[in-house]
Protein backbone atom coordinates (compact mmCIF):
# COMPACT_ATOMS: atom_id res chain seq x y z
CA UNK A 1 0.00 0.00 0.00
CA UNK A 2 1.37 3.39 -1.02
CA UNK A 3 0.60 6.76 0.51
CA UNK A 4 -0.27 9.89 -1.42
CA UNK A 5 -0.64 13.39 -0.10
CA UNK A 6 -3.60 15.19 -1.64
CA UNK A 7 -3.45 18.82 -2.73
CA UNK A 8 -3.86 21.45 -0.01
CA UNK A 9 -7.54 22.32 -0.36
CA UNK A 10 -7.36 25.56 1.64
CA UNK A 11 -5.88 28.98 1.00
CA UNK A 12 -2.75 28.99 3.10
CA UNK A 13 -0.30 31.90 3.08
CA UNK A 14 2.63 31.44 0.77
CA UNK A 15 5.24 30.88 3.46
CA UNK A 16 3.15 28.25 5.16
CA UNK A 17 2.76 26.36 1.91
CA UNK A 18 6.51 26.50 1.33
CA UNK A 19 7.21 25.35 4.90
CA UNK A 20 4.69 22.56 4.58
CA UNK A 21 6.25 21.10 1.45
CA UNK A 22 9.72 21.54 2.91
CA UNK A 23 8.61 19.06 5.59
CA UNK A 24 6.93 16.76 3.09
CA UNK A 25 10.31 15.98 1.52
CA UNK A 26 11.11 13.90 4.59
CA UNK A 27 7.73 12.27 5.04
CA UNK A 28 7.03 8.66 4.11
CA UNK A 29 4.69 9.52 1.23
CA UNK A 30 5.12 8.13 -2.26
CA UNK A 31 3.05 10.54 -4.31
CA UNK A 32 2.29 14.26 -3.84
CA UNK A 33 -0.40 16.30 -5.57
CA UNK A 34 0.35 20.00 -5.95
CA UNK A 35 -1.64 23.04 -6.98
CA UNK A 36 -4.91 24.84 -6.44
CA UNK A 37 -8.07 22.78 -6.91
CA UNK A 38 -10.76 25.07 -5.48
CA UNK A 39 -10.52 28.71 -6.60
CA UNK A 40 -8.57 30.29 -9.46
CA UNK A 41 -8.34 33.58 -7.58
CA UNK A 42 -6.03 32.08 -4.99
CA UNK A 43 -2.62 33.02 -6.33
CA UNK A 44 -0.21 33.07 -3.42
CA UNK A 45 1.87 30.66 -5.45
CA UNK A 46 2.52 30.92 -9.17
CA UNK A 47 3.04 28.07 -11.56
CA UNK A 48 6.82 28.43 -11.25
CA UNK A 49 6.57 28.18 -7.47
CA UNK A 50 4.69 24.92 -7.74
CA UNK A 51 7.23 23.57 -10.21
CA UNK A 52 10.03 24.49 -7.84
CA UNK A 53 8.29 22.72 -4.97
CA UNK A 54 7.70 19.78 -7.28
CA UNK A 55 11.35 19.59 -8.35
CA UNK A 56 12.47 19.45 -4.72
CA UNK A 57 9.98 16.69 -3.98
CA UNK A 58 11.10 14.71 -7.03
CA UNK A 59 14.66 15.05 -5.77
CA UNK A 60 13.43 13.62 -2.47
CA UNK A 61 12.12 10.59 -4.34
CA UNK A 62 8.45 11.49 -4.57
CA UNK A 63 6.16 11.09 -7.54
CA UNK A 64 4.69 14.55 -8.22
CA UNK A 65 1.48 15.46 -10.01
CA UNK A 66 -0.26 18.75 -10.66
CA UNK A 67 -3.95 18.83 -9.71
CA UNK A 68 -6.46 20.69 -11.86
CA UNK A 69 -9.20 22.99 -10.68
CA UNK A 70 -12.43 21.15 -9.97
CA UNK A 71 -14.94 23.67 -11.28
CA UNK A 72 -13.78 25.45 -14.41
CA UNK A 73 -16.02 28.29 -15.54
CA UNK A 74 -14.05 31.02 -17.26
CA UNK A 75 -12.10 30.83 -20.51
CA UNK A 76 -9.07 32.08 -18.61
CA UNK A 77 -9.31 29.03 -16.36
CA UNK A 78 -9.47 26.72 -19.36
CA UNK A 79 -6.34 28.45 -20.69
CA UNK A 80 -4.57 27.88 -17.38
CA UNK A 81 -5.56 24.23 -17.59
CA UNK A 82 -3.85 23.86 -20.96
CA UNK A 83 -0.69 25.39 -19.55
CA UNK A 84 -0.92 23.04 -16.56
CA UNK A 85 -0.70 20.14 -19.02
CA UNK A 86 2.47 21.56 -20.58
CA UNK A 87 4.60 21.64 -17.44
CA UNK A 88 6.20 18.26 -18.02
CA UNK A 89 4.41 16.61 -15.10
CA UNK A 90 1.44 14.28 -14.99
CA UNK A 91 -1.81 15.76 -13.79
CA UNK A 92 -4.79 14.89 -11.65
CA UNK A 93 -7.89 15.64 -13.71
CA UNK A 94 -10.68 16.87 -11.45
CA UNK A 95 -13.04 17.90 -14.24
CA UNK A 96 -13.79 16.57 -17.71
CA UNK A 97 -12.19 19.71 -19.17
CA UNK A 98 -8.91 18.45 -17.74
CA UNK A 99 -9.59 14.91 -18.99
CA UNK A 100 -10.23 16.32 -22.45
CA UNK A 101 -7.08 18.44 -22.59
CA UNK A 102 -4.89 15.65 -21.18
CA UNK A 103 -6.28 13.19 -23.70
CA UNK A 104 -5.62 15.53 -26.61
CA UNK A 105 -2.07 16.12 -25.44
CA UNK A 106 -1.48 12.43 -24.87
CA UNK A 107 -0.74 13.07 -21.20
CA UNK A 108 -1.43 10.28 -18.71
CA UNK A 109 -3.55 11.40 -15.77
CA UNK A 110 -5.07 10.42 -12.44
CA UNK A 111 -8.88 10.67 -12.44
CA UNK A 112 -9.92 12.61 -9.33
CA UNK A 113 -12.89 11.75 -7.11
CA UNK A 114 -15.13 14.41 -8.69
CA UNK A 115 -15.14 12.67 -12.10
CA UNK A 116 -18.00 10.47 -10.88
CA UNK A 117 -16.55 7.09 -11.78
CA UNK A 118 -19.03 4.73 -10.20
CA UNK A 119 -18.77 1.69 -12.52
CA UNK A 120 -16.52 -0.32 -14.81
CA UNK A 121 -17.74 0.98 -18.18
CA UNK A 122 -17.19 4.57 -17.00
CA UNK A 123 -13.67 3.73 -15.86
CA UNK A 124 -12.96 2.00 -19.17
CA UNK A 125 -13.86 5.14 -21.13
CA UNK A 126 -11.33 7.15 -19.17
CA UNK A 127 -8.69 4.44 -19.40
CA UNK A 128 -8.94 4.80 -23.15
CA UNK A 129 -8.43 8.55 -22.67
CA UNK A 130 -5.20 7.97 -20.74
CA UNK A 131 -6.17 7.53 -17.10
CA UNK A 132 -3.58 5.46 -15.20
CA UNK A 133 -5.08 5.73 -11.70
CA UNK A 134 -8.48 6.67 -10.36
CA UNK A 135 -9.96 7.93 -7.12
CA UNK A 136 -13.47 6.58 -6.38
CA UNK A 137 -16.19 9.07 -5.43
CA UNK A 138 -16.07 9.74 -1.68
CA UNK A 139 -19.55 8.33 -1.26
CA UNK A 140 -18.68 4.95 -2.77
CA UNK A 141 -19.11 2.20 -0.15
CA UNK A 142 -16.55 -0.58 0.33
CA UNK A 143 -19.06 -3.09 -1.01
CA UNK A 144 -19.30 -1.33 -4.38
CA UNK A 145 -15.56 -0.84 -4.59
CA UNK A 146 -15.10 -4.51 -3.85
CA UNK A 147 -17.45 -5.37 -6.71
CA UNK A 148 -15.40 -3.20 -9.07
CA UNK A 149 -12.03 -4.51 -7.98
CA UNK A 150 -13.08 -8.15 -8.15
CA UNK A 151 -12.07 -7.98 -11.81
CA UNK A 152 -8.69 -6.44 -12.57
CA UNK A 153 -9.20 -2.84 -13.67
CA UNK A 154 -5.75 -2.61 -15.19
CA UNK A 155 -5.12 0.74 -13.49
CA UNK A 156 -4.28 1.86 -9.98
CA UNK A 157 -6.95 2.58 -7.38
CA UNK A 158 -6.40 5.39 -4.88
CA UNK A 159 -8.85 5.86 -2.00
CA UNK A 160 -9.45 9.18 -0.24
CA UNK A 161 -8.68 7.79 3.20
CA UNK A 162 -8.05 10.72 5.51
CA UNK A 163 -9.16 14.32 5.94
CA UNK A 164 -12.12 16.60 5.69
CA UNK A 165 -14.21 15.49 2.76
CA UNK A 166 -14.85 17.88 -0.13
CA UNK A 167 -18.58 17.36 -0.68
CA UNK A 168 -19.79 20.08 -3.07
CA UNK A 169 -18.72 22.92 -5.36
CA UNK A 170 -20.71 26.01 -6.31
CA UNK A 171 -20.48 29.13 -8.45
CA UNK A 172 -21.05 30.99 -5.23
CA UNK A 173 -18.33 31.70 -2.70
CA UNK A 174 -19.80 30.94 0.71
CA UNK A 175 -16.81 32.34 2.57
CA UNK A 176 -17.36 35.72 0.90
CA UNK A 177 -21.10 35.37 1.55
CA UNK A 178 -20.47 34.76 5.26
CA UNK A 179 -18.68 38.13 5.34
CA UNK A 180 -21.33 39.85 3.23
CA UNK A 181 -18.87 40.41 0.42
CA UNK A 182 -19.46 39.82 -3.29
CA UNK A 183 -17.33 37.09 -4.86
CA UNK A 184 -15.73 39.59 -7.23
CA UNK A 185 -14.52 41.60 -4.23
CA UNK A 186 -13.97 38.73 -1.82
CA UNK A 187 -10.95 40.21 -0.04
CA UNK A 188 -9.58 36.64 0.12
CA UNK A 189 -11.43 36.10 3.38
CA UNK A 190 -10.87 32.35 3.08
CA UNK A 191 -7.22 32.90 4.03
CA UNK A 192 -8.35 33.36 7.62
CA UNK A 193 -9.52 29.73 7.84
CA UNK A 194 -6.62 27.29 7.46
CA UNK A 195 -8.99 24.33 7.91
CA UNK A 196 -12.18 25.95 6.58
CA UNK A 197 -14.91 28.09 8.14
CA UNK A 198 -17.20 26.25 10.56
CA UNK A 199 -20.88 26.10 9.68
CA UNK A 200 -22.93 25.09 12.72
CA UNK A 201 -26.56 24.17 13.14
CA UNK A 202 -28.83 26.40 15.23
CA UNK A 203 -28.17 23.97 18.08
CA UNK A 204 -24.50 24.92 17.93
CA UNK A 205 -23.53 21.56 16.49
CA UNK A 206 -20.60 21.50 14.07
CA UNK A 207 -22.03 20.38 10.74
CA UNK A 208 -20.24 21.46 7.57
CA UNK A 209 -17.19 23.50 6.71
CA UNK A 210 -16.97 26.27 4.13
CA UNK A 211 -13.86 26.48 1.99
CA UNK A 212 -14.61 29.22 -0.54
CA UNK A 213 -16.82 27.74 -3.26
CA UNK A 214 -16.32 24.28 -1.78
CA UNK A 215 -18.39 22.77 1.03
CA UNK A 216 -16.70 20.15 3.17
CA UNK A 217 -17.63 17.78 5.93
CA UNK A 218 -16.93 18.85 9.48
CA UNK A 219 -15.80 15.31 10.28
CA UNK A 220 -12.55 13.89 8.97
CA UNK A 221 -12.86 10.69 7.04
CA UNK A 222 -10.47 8.19 8.57
CA UNK A 223 -10.19 4.73 7.05
CA UNK A 224 -7.01 3.67 8.81
CA UNK A 225 -8.59 0.70 10.55
CA UNK A 226 -9.88 -0.51 7.18
CA UNK A 227 -6.35 -0.89 5.83
CA UNK A 228 -6.45 -4.70 5.86
CA UNK A 229 -9.62 -4.86 3.77
CA UNK A 230 -8.37 -2.16 1.38
CA UNK A 231 -5.25 -4.22 0.96
CA UNK A 232 -7.18 -7.40 0.27
CA UNK A 233 -9.40 -5.64 -2.25
CA UNK A 234 -6.42 -4.43 -4.22
CA UNK A 235 -6.44 -0.73 -3.37
CA UNK A 236 -2.98 0.53 -4.34
CA UNK A 237 -2.78 3.91 -2.63
CA UNK A 238 -4.37 5.76 0.27
CA UNK A 239 -4.74 9.50 -0.11
CA UNK A 240 -4.30 11.71 2.95
CA UNK A 241 -5.69 15.21 2.61
CA UNK A 242 -3.64 17.92 4.35
CA UNK A 243 -4.83 19.76 7.45
CA UNK A 244 -3.04 22.70 9.08
CA UNK A 245 -1.55 20.91 12.08
CA UNK A 246 -0.19 17.49 13.09
CA UNK A 247 -0.06 16.24 9.51
CA UNK A 248 3.45 14.99 10.20
CA UNK A 249 2.20 12.68 12.97
CA UNK A 250 -0.74 11.52 10.90
CA UNK A 251 1.35 10.63 7.87
CA UNK A 252 3.89 8.76 9.98
CA UNK A 253 1.21 6.80 11.79
CA UNK A 254 -0.31 5.72 8.49
CA UNK A 255 3.10 4.60 7.25
CA UNK A 256 3.72 2.66 10.47
CA UNK A 257 0.28 1.10 10.38
CA UNK A 258 0.90 -0.05 6.80
CA UNK A 259 4.26 -1.48 7.86
CA UNK A 260 2.60 -3.22 10.81
CA UNK A 261 4.72 -1.41 13.38
CA UNK A 262 1.97 0.68 14.98
CA UNK A 263 -1.74 0.24 15.73
CA UNK A 264 -4.16 1.12 12.94
CA UNK A 265 -5.38 4.14 14.81
CA UNK A 266 -4.89 7.90 14.85
CA UNK A 267 -4.76 9.75 18.14
CA UNK A 268 -7.88 11.83 18.61
CA UNK A 269 -5.92 14.95 19.53
CA UNK A 270 -4.19 14.95 16.12
CA UNK A 271 -7.53 15.33 14.36
CA UNK A 272 -9.15 18.72 13.87
CA UNK A 273 -12.60 17.09 14.07
CA UNK A 274 -14.09 13.70 14.94
CA UNK A 275 -13.41 10.83 12.55
CA UNK A 276 -16.01 9.28 10.25
CA UNK A 277 -16.15 6.25 7.99
CA UNK A 278 -19.87 6.20 7.17
CA UNK A 279 -19.50 6.22 3.41
CA UNK A 280 -17.15 3.25 3.48
CA UNK A 281 -19.67 1.33 5.61
CA UNK A 282 -22.57 2.22 3.29
CA UNK A 283 -24.02 4.61 5.85
CA UNK A 284 -24.43 8.40 5.83
CA UNK A 285 -20.94 9.84 5.37
CA UNK A 286 -21.05 11.78 8.65
CA UNK A 287 -21.26 8.64 10.81
CA UNK A 288 -18.48 6.77 12.55
CA UNK A 289 -19.00 3.01 12.71
CA UNK A 290 -17.11 2.48 15.97
CA UNK A 291 -15.85 5.01 18.46
CA UNK A 292 -12.10 5.36 18.17
Amino acid at each position, binding site marked *: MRISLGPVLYFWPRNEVLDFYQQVRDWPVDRVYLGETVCSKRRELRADDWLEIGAALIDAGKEVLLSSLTLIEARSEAGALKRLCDRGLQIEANDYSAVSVAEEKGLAFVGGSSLNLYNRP*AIDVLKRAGMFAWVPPLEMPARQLQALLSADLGIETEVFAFGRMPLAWSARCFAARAQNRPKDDCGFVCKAYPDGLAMKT*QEGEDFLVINGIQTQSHHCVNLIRHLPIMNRMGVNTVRLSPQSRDMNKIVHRWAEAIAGSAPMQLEREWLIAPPADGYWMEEPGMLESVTA
Partner: protein
Amino acid sequence: MDLVCPAGSLPALKSAVDEGADVVYLGLKDATNARHFAGLNFTPKRIAEAVRYAHDRGASVYMAINTYAHADGVERWQSAVDQAADLGADALIMADTGVLDYAARQHPDLPRHLSVQASATTREALDFYYRHFGIRRAVLPRVLAVQQVRALAEDSPVELEVFAFGSLCIMAEGRCQLSSYVTGQSPNTAGVCSPASHVRWEEKGEILESRLNGKLIDRFQPQERAGYPTLCKGRFYTEGHRHHALEAPTSLNTAELLPELKAMGISAVKIEGRQRSPAYVAAVTRVWRRLLDAVDRNPARYQPDAEGQATLSRLSEGSQTTLGAYARTWQ
Protein backbone atom coordinates in the same frame (compact mmCIF):
# COMPACT_ATOMS: atom_id res chain seq x y z
CA MET B 1 -35.78 27.91 -28.79
CA ASP B 2 -37.58 24.77 -27.68
CA LEU B 3 -39.52 24.66 -24.44
CA VAL B 4 -38.58 21.51 -22.52
CA CYS B 5 -40.98 20.66 -19.68
CA PRO B 6 -40.96 18.08 -16.89
CA ALA B 7 -43.38 15.23 -16.27
CA GLY B 8 -43.46 12.86 -13.32
CA SER B 9 -46.72 11.27 -14.45
CA LEU B 10 -48.85 10.82 -17.55
CA PRO B 11 -51.32 13.56 -16.48
CA ALA B 12 -48.38 15.95 -16.05
CA LEU B 13 -47.11 15.04 -19.51
CA LYS B 14 -50.52 15.66 -21.02
CA SER B 15 -50.71 19.03 -19.26
CA ALA B 16 -47.33 20.03 -20.62
CA VAL B 17 -48.14 18.96 -24.19
CA ASP B 18 -51.59 20.61 -24.08
CA GLU B 19 -50.10 23.88 -22.82
CA GLY B 20 -47.53 24.05 -25.58
CA ALA B 21 -44.36 22.24 -24.53
CA ASP B 22 -42.17 21.35 -27.51
CA VAL B 23 -40.57 18.58 -25.53
CA VAL B 24 -41.44 16.71 -22.35
CA TYR B 25 -38.79 14.85 -20.37
CA LEU B 26 -39.47 11.94 -18.06
CA GLY B 27 -37.87 8.95 -16.35
CA LEU B 28 -38.45 5.38 -15.29
CA LYS B 29 -39.73 4.40 -11.85
CA ASP B 30 -36.28 3.55 -10.45
CA ALA B 31 -32.89 4.96 -9.48
CA THR B 32 -31.82 5.42 -13.11
CA ASN B 33 -33.05 9.02 -13.08
CA ALA B 34 -32.43 12.02 -10.89
CA ARG B 35 -36.01 12.41 -9.57
CA HIS B 36 -36.48 9.02 -7.97
CA PHE B 37 -39.36 9.87 -5.63
CA ALA B 38 -42.10 7.62 -4.29
CA GLY B 39 -45.21 7.65 -6.48
CA LEU B 40 -43.42 9.45 -9.29
CA ASN B 41 -42.31 8.52 -12.80
CA PHE B 42 -43.26 6.02 -15.46
CA THR B 43 -43.52 2.31 -16.10
CA PRO B 44 -42.47 1.27 -19.63
CA LYS B 45 -46.15 0.89 -20.55
CA ARG B 46 -46.88 4.45 -19.42
CA ILE B 47 -43.92 5.73 -21.40
CA ALA B 48 -45.34 4.12 -24.54
CA GLU B 49 -48.64 5.94 -23.90
CA ALA B 50 -46.78 9.17 -23.20
CA VAL B 51 -44.77 8.95 -26.41
CA ARG B 52 -47.93 8.28 -28.43
CA TYR B 53 -49.75 11.22 -26.82
CA ALA B 54 -46.85 13.59 -27.41
CA HIS B 55 -46.07 12.46 -30.95
CA ASP B 56 -49.73 12.67 -32.01
CA ARG B 57 -49.62 16.33 -31.01
CA GLY B 58 -46.26 17.20 -32.52
CA ALA B 59 -44.28 17.15 -29.28
CA SER B 60 -41.16 15.11 -28.45
CA VAL B 61 -40.25 13.00 -25.44
CA TYR B 62 -36.79 12.86 -23.89
CA MET B 63 -35.95 10.18 -21.40
CA ALA B 64 -33.66 11.01 -18.47
CA ILE B 65 -31.30 8.19 -17.49
CA ASN B 66 -29.11 10.64 -15.69
CA THR B 67 -27.89 9.08 -12.47
CA TYR B 68 -24.63 7.17 -12.19
CA ALA B 69 -24.81 3.41 -12.63
CA HIS B 70 -23.93 1.40 -9.54
CA ALA B 71 -20.84 -0.80 -9.81
CA ASP B 72 -22.97 -3.91 -9.30
CA GLY B 73 -26.01 -2.73 -11.30
CA VAL B 74 -24.74 -1.53 -14.67
CA GLU B 75 -27.23 -3.77 -16.49
CA ARG B 76 -30.16 -1.81 -15.04
CA TRP B 77 -28.92 1.40 -16.63
CA GLN B 78 -28.16 -0.34 -19.89
CA SER B 79 -31.60 -1.87 -19.88
CA ALA B 80 -33.14 1.57 -19.32
CA VAL B 81 -31.29 2.78 -22.44
CA ASP B 82 -32.59 -0.18 -24.46
CA GLN B 83 -36.12 0.42 -23.22
CA ALA B 84 -35.98 4.08 -24.16
CA ALA B 85 -35.00 3.08 -27.69
CA ASP B 86 -37.76 0.47 -27.88
CA LEU B 87 -40.38 2.87 -26.52
CA GLY B 88 -39.65 5.51 -29.12
CA ALA B 89 -38.04 8.23 -26.99
CA ASP B 90 -36.71 11.06 -29.15
CA ALA B 91 -33.51 11.55 -27.16
CA LEU B 92 -31.72 10.27 -24.07
CA ILE B 93 -30.44 12.53 -21.28
CA MET B 94 -27.39 10.95 -19.63
CA ALA B 95 -24.47 11.88 -17.38
CA ASP B 96 -22.51 8.67 -16.71
CA THR B 97 -19.72 8.15 -19.24
CA GLY B 98 -20.31 4.40 -19.05
CA VAL B 99 -24.01 4.79 -19.87
CA LEU B 100 -23.25 7.31 -22.64
CA ASP B 101 -20.75 4.89 -24.12
CA TYR B 102 -23.27 2.07 -24.09
CA ALA B 103 -25.96 4.20 -25.72
CA ALA B 104 -23.58 5.45 -28.40
CA ARG B 105 -22.54 1.94 -29.31
CA GLN B 106 -25.89 0.17 -29.09
CA HIS B 107 -28.20 2.90 -30.39
CA PRO B 108 -26.09 5.22 -32.51
CA ASP B 109 -29.14 6.74 -34.19
CA LEU B 110 -30.87 7.72 -30.94
CA PRO B 111 -29.77 11.29 -30.08
CA ARG B 112 -27.78 11.63 -26.89
CA HIS B 113 -27.96 14.69 -24.65
CA LEU B 114 -25.52 15.39 -21.87
CA SER B 115 -27.39 15.80 -18.59
CA VAL B 116 -26.89 18.74 -16.28
CA GLN B 117 -25.67 16.11 -13.82
CA ALA B 118 -22.43 15.86 -15.81
CA SER B 119 -21.67 19.52 -14.99
CA ALA B 120 -19.90 20.26 -18.26
CA THR B 121 -18.96 23.95 -18.13
CA THR B 122 -16.31 24.40 -20.82
CA ARG B 123 -15.63 23.97 -24.51
CA GLU B 124 -13.02 21.37 -23.58
CA ALA B 125 -15.45 19.28 -21.51
CA LEU B 126 -18.09 19.47 -24.24
CA ASP B 127 -15.43 18.40 -26.78
CA PHE B 128 -14.74 15.32 -24.69
CA TYR B 129 -18.36 14.20 -24.66
CA TYR B 130 -18.78 15.04 -28.33
CA ARG B 131 -15.61 13.22 -29.33
CA HIS B 132 -16.40 10.07 -27.39
CA PHE B 133 -20.17 9.79 -27.60
CA GLY B 134 -21.27 12.12 -30.38
CA ILE B 135 -23.65 14.00 -28.10
CA ARG B 136 -26.07 16.28 -29.93
CA ARG B 137 -26.79 18.61 -27.04
CA ALA B 138 -25.63 19.49 -23.52
CA VAL B 139 -27.68 20.86 -20.66
CA LEU B 140 -25.57 23.45 -18.85
CA PRO B 141 -25.21 23.38 -15.08
CA ARG B 142 -26.58 26.28 -13.09
CA VAL B 143 -23.13 27.61 -12.16
CA LEU B 144 -22.30 29.79 -15.16
CA ALA B 145 -22.75 33.53 -15.33
CA VAL B 146 -24.64 34.74 -18.40
CA GLN B 147 -21.38 36.07 -19.90
CA GLN B 148 -19.88 32.61 -19.51
CA VAL B 149 -22.89 30.99 -21.16
CA ARG B 150 -22.44 33.39 -24.08
CA ALA B 151 -18.74 32.59 -24.38
CA LEU B 152 -19.51 28.89 -24.35
CA ALA B 153 -22.31 29.24 -26.90
CA GLU B 154 -19.89 30.96 -29.29
CA ASP B 155 -17.73 27.91 -29.73
CA SER B 156 -19.66 24.93 -28.43
CA PRO B 157 -19.44 21.86 -30.65
CA VAL B 158 -23.01 20.90 -29.68
CA GLU B 159 -26.44 22.44 -29.10
CA LEU B 160 -26.93 23.99 -25.66
CA GLU B 161 -29.93 23.79 -23.37
CA VAL B 162 -30.17 25.93 -20.25
CA PHE B 163 -32.35 25.94 -17.16
CA ALA B 164 -35.07 28.54 -17.27
CA PHE B 165 -37.24 28.00 -14.24
CA GLY B 166 -37.69 25.86 -11.13
CA SER B 167 -35.93 24.73 -8.01
CA LEU B 168 -32.39 26.01 -7.82
CA CYS B 169 -29.48 23.69 -7.21
CA ILE B 170 -26.82 25.96 -5.77
CA MET B 171 -24.06 23.41 -6.15
CA ALA B 172 -22.60 22.21 -9.43
CA GLU B 173 -24.96 19.39 -10.35
CA GLY B 174 -23.49 15.93 -10.04
CA ARG B 175 -20.76 17.32 -7.80
CA CYS B 176 -22.73 17.45 -4.57
CA GLN B 177 -22.62 14.77 -1.92
CA LEU B 178 -24.18 16.80 0.90
CA SER B 179 -27.32 14.68 0.82
CA SER B 180 -25.50 11.36 1.11
CA TYR B 181 -23.23 12.80 3.79
CA VAL B 182 -26.29 13.33 5.97
CA THR B 183 -28.73 10.65 4.79
CA GLY B 184 -26.73 8.09 2.82
CA GLN B 185 -28.69 8.87 -0.35
CA SER B 186 -27.41 11.18 -3.05
CA PRO B 187 -28.63 12.58 -6.36
CA ASN B 188 -25.81 10.79 -8.18
CA THR B 189 -26.60 7.25 -7.17
CA ALA B 190 -30.12 7.27 -5.71
CA GLY B 191 -31.69 10.11 -7.70
CA VAL B 192 -32.77 11.95 -4.56
CA CYS B 193 -31.66 14.95 -2.50
CA SER B 194 -32.61 15.44 1.15
CA PRO B 195 -35.13 12.56 0.87
CA ALA B 196 -38.52 12.90 2.57
CA SER B 197 -37.97 9.59 4.37
CA HIS B 198 -35.31 11.32 6.49
CA VAL B 199 -37.26 14.52 7.21
CA ARG B 200 -38.76 15.16 10.63
CA TRP B 201 -40.85 18.15 11.71
CA GLU B 202 -41.04 18.95 15.40
CA GLU B 203 -43.03 21.58 17.25
CA LYS B 204 -41.26 23.11 20.24
CA GLY B 205 -43.81 25.48 21.73
CA GLU B 206 -44.40 28.04 19.01
CA ILE B 207 -41.25 27.10 17.14
CA LEU B 208 -41.30 24.61 14.28
CA GLU B 209 -38.09 22.69 13.65
CA SER B 210 -37.14 20.81 10.53
CA ARG B 211 -34.57 18.04 10.69
CA LEU B 212 -32.83 15.86 8.17
CA ASN B 213 -31.67 12.58 9.67
CA GLY B 214 -31.52 14.29 13.05
CA LYS B 215 -29.56 17.37 11.92
CA LEU B 216 -31.35 20.64 12.57
CA ILE B 217 -31.81 22.34 9.20
CA ASP B 218 -34.01 25.25 10.25
CA ARG B 219 -36.24 26.72 12.96
CA PHE B 220 -39.30 28.75 12.10
CA GLN B 221 -41.19 31.38 14.08
CA PRO B 222 -45.01 31.25 13.81
CA GLN B 223 -45.08 34.09 11.26
CA GLU B 224 -42.41 32.50 9.04
CA ARG B 225 -43.15 30.28 6.10
CA ALA B 226 -41.59 26.86 6.76
CA GLY B 227 -39.81 25.47 3.72
CA TYR B 228 -38.85 21.89 2.96
CA PRO B 229 -35.53 21.08 4.66
CA THR B 230 -33.36 20.78 1.55
CA LEU B 231 -30.12 20.82 3.42
CA CYS B 232 -28.42 23.60 1.45
CA LYS B 233 -31.37 25.92 2.09
CA GLY B 234 -31.47 25.92 5.88
CA ARG B 235 -30.26 28.54 8.33
CA PHE B 236 -26.95 27.92 10.04
CA TYR B 237 -24.36 29.79 12.05
CA THR B 238 -21.09 31.07 10.67
CA GLU B 239 -19.03 32.95 13.27
CA GLY B 240 -22.01 33.50 15.55
CA HIS B 241 -24.23 34.89 12.81
CA ARG B 242 -27.38 32.98 11.91
CA HIS B 243 -28.25 33.10 8.21
CA HIS B 244 -28.91 31.12 5.07
CA ALA B 245 -25.22 30.29 4.91
CA LEU B 246 -25.50 28.59 1.51
CA GLU B 247 -28.80 29.78 -0.01
CA ALA B 248 -32.34 30.78 0.95
CA PRO B 249 -35.34 28.84 -0.37
CA THR B 250 -35.79 30.36 -3.80
CA SER B 251 -36.42 29.33 -7.40
CA LEU B 252 -34.57 30.16 -10.57
CA ASN B 253 -36.39 32.39 -13.05
CA THR B 254 -34.63 33.52 -16.23
CA ALA B 255 -37.61 35.09 -18.01
CA GLU B 256 -35.79 38.42 -18.35
CA LEU B 257 -32.82 36.73 -20.05
CA LEU B 258 -34.79 35.14 -22.89
CA PRO B 259 -33.87 37.60 -25.67
CA GLU B 260 -30.21 37.29 -24.69
CA LEU B 261 -30.37 33.49 -24.63
CA LYS B 262 -32.04 33.49 -28.01
CA ALA B 263 -29.43 35.82 -29.47
CA MET B 264 -26.68 33.51 -28.23
CA GLY B 265 -28.24 30.64 -30.13
CA ILE B 266 -29.34 28.57 -27.15
CA SER B 267 -31.41 25.68 -28.54
CA ALA B 268 -33.76 25.01 -25.66
CA VAL B 269 -34.85 26.23 -22.26
CA LYS B 270 -35.68 23.74 -19.56
CA ILE B 271 -38.22 23.82 -16.77
CA GLU B 272 -37.26 21.90 -13.63
CA GLY B 273 -39.86 19.95 -11.66
CA ARG B 274 -40.69 16.34 -12.49
CA GLN B 275 -41.71 16.02 -8.83
CA ARG B 276 -44.38 18.71 -9.29
CA SER B 277 -48.11 18.25 -9.83
CA PRO B 278 -49.85 18.27 -13.23
CA ALA B 279 -51.46 21.60 -12.24
CA TYR B 280 -48.05 23.13 -11.56
CA VAL B 281 -46.67 21.84 -14.85
CA ALA B 282 -49.71 23.21 -16.71
CA ALA B 283 -49.44 26.66 -15.12
CA VAL B 284 -45.69 27.00 -15.64
CA THR B 285 -45.78 25.65 -19.21
CA ARG B 286 -48.55 28.08 -20.12
CA VAL B 287 -46.53 31.07 -18.88
CA TRP B 288 -43.34 29.96 -20.62
CA ARG B 289 -45.10 29.19 -23.90
CA ARG B 290 -46.29 32.80 -23.91
CA LEU B 291 -42.82 34.09 -23.06
CA LEU B 292 -41.16 32.10 -25.84
CA ASP B 293 -43.78 33.10 -28.39
CA ALA B 294 -43.29 36.73 -27.40
CA VAL B 295 -39.52 36.58 -27.77
CA ASP B 296 -39.93 34.85 -31.14
CA ARG B 297 -42.29 37.54 -32.39
CA ASN B 298 -40.14 40.48 -31.43
CA PRO B 299 -37.09 40.04 -29.23
CA ALA B 300 -36.37 43.79 -29.20
CA ARG B 301 -39.70 44.64 -27.62
CA TYR B 302 -39.94 41.57 -25.43
CA GLN B 303 -40.84 42.06 -21.81
CA PRO B 304 -42.04 39.34 -19.42
CA ASP B 305 -45.74 39.98 -18.74
CA ALA B 306 -46.51 40.91 -15.16
CA GLU B 307 -49.29 38.37 -14.73
CA GLY B 308 -47.09 35.50 -15.88
CA GLN B 309 -44.28 36.59 -13.60
CA ALA B 310 -46.68 36.78 -10.66
CA THR B 311 -47.78 33.23 -11.41
CA LEU B 312 -44.18 32.02 -11.48
CA SER B 313 -43.37 33.77 -8.19
CA ARG B 314 -46.41 32.24 -6.55
CA LEU B 315 -45.26 28.79 -7.67
CA SER B 316 -41.67 29.31 -6.49
CA GLU B 317 -39.92 28.03 -3.41
CA GLY B 318 -40.38 30.62 -0.66
CA SER B 319 -42.32 32.69 -3.26
CA GLN B 320 -38.96 34.10 -4.31
CA THR B 321 -37.12 33.92 -7.58
CA THR B 322 -33.55 34.68 -8.53
CA LEU B 323 -31.32 34.76 -11.59
CA GLY B 324 -28.97 32.52 -9.64
CA ALA B 325 -25.46 32.14 -10.99
CA TYR B 326 -26.44 33.80 -14.30
CA ALA B 327 -25.95 37.05 -12.36
CA ARG B 328 -22.42 37.62 -11.04
CA THR B 329 -23.85 39.40 -8.00
CA TRP B 330 -25.51 36.15 -6.87
CA GLN B 331 -22.18 34.37 -6.83
